[in-house]
């Protein structure tokens, strides 16, 4: 989870819709090239450009590392498997490709206010309206996800601590049941809070 880092850099000022499209395009391109050597060159180039963008956006190095830390173990395993099966070039490709993608996605959330991101997504999803998709609801769902990930993490930590105090830390049921119960209770309250603040999905997002 990466919070927004305020700034005035060209990366910050770039329209959120363009950033999302660039992310999708890069993600597709990184997996589209069939030739291994070309794919490696592209992935390394993408990684270099991403690094440059972080520098332009003046994001501190510790935040760059924070993006990669949760991925470290998965990355290490994937690289080792590729090294063993397909050689060092394939290992390098996996490492460069995944890091570039994660860092680029992190850059979008680090340099875009979530309200702007949601607005861009709502506009981007407007064409799905005839299919019964409500872009305002989809936007709110994404915003709520961003907002409540840290809250859920805190609840899980609290429950884990309480169960550890009772010697139940190894019981999956003892951990998940209270978390789920609290989440359901919380979701009722959040829905009421959204209602109380005059939310109307048919006219939201203007």
């Amino acid at each position, binding site marked *: 989870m990466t919070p*927004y880092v305020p700034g005035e850099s060209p990366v910050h000022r770039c329209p959120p819709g363009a950033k999302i499209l660039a992310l999708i395009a890069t993600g597709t391109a990184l997996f589209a090239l069939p030739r291994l050597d070309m794919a490696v060159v592209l992935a390394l180039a993408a990684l270099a450009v991403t690094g440059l963008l972080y520098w332009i956006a003046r994001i501190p190095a510790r935040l760059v590392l924070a993006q990669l830390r949760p991925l470290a173990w998965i990355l290490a395993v994937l690289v080792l498997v590729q090294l063993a099966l397909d050689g060092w070039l394939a290992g390098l490709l996996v490492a460069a490709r995944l890091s570039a993608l994660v860092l680029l996605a992190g850059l979008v959330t680090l340099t875009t206010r*979530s*309200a702007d991101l949601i607005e861009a997504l709502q506009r981007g999803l407007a064409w799905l309206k005839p299919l019964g998709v409500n872009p305002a609801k989809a936007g709110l769902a994404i915003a*709520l996800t961003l*907002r409540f990930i*840290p809250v859920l993490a805190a609840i899980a930590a609290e429950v884990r601590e309480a169960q550890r105090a009772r010697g139940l830390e190894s019981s999956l049921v003892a951990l998940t049941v209270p978390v789920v119960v609290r989440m359901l209770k919380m979701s009722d309250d959040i829905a009421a809070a959204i209602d*109380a603040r*005059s939310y*109307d999905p048919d006219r939201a997002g203007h």
Partner: protein
Amino acid sequence: MIEIRHVGHAFGERVVLRDLSLDLTERRIAVVGGNGSGKSTFARLLNGLLLPTQGTVRVDGLDTRRDGKAVRRKVGFVFQNPDNQIVLPVVAEDLAFGLRNLGLRRDEIARRTDEALRRYDLFDLRDHPAHLLSGGQKQLLAIAGVLAMAPDVIVFDEPTTLLDLRNKRRIAQAIDGLAQRAVVVSHDLAFLEHFDRVLVFEDGRVVIDDRPSVALPAYVAMMS
């Protein structure tokens, strides 16, 4: 004015409010009662978050059953746990959430957001992730978010229960300083001493309805 006429409420078989009829006109009204006495349900009826299973609730003539949206514009609501009330990830964005729902212009949203943030010393934290605020700051943000929508009345459901002493005082001061009318559900009796009216709930009924100097000692006697 909020008019409550023969209001009852039940969750399935469980009856939580029984035949209440009240007119709420005072500037500061306190609601007290034991756990499960029906006071939180009562609070939720006042802005149409819950609809009564019997009777009617009217706010300035608007029926909560028919005119829910209009009622919610007049009556704001602050919940016990601000974590459930802050819906967007960044302080200023959350504050603007209700204003956007009112369909205000961008410059008006920005003006009201800044004003409300300054009022509660949150302006420097405007770009801060909401989950990193302290408990007191979160509750202030929740109040600011409701206040920015300029309601006539604000209902508070145990706004200080989860806070430490310093933050309790800060929130009590914030509520005291409101120009709006307020209905406050609370267990913090000292905070309610200078209110205009106290409603004591027990078993879904108002058993005492009086000035704090009379109602609060009677409530304490009743609970001991």
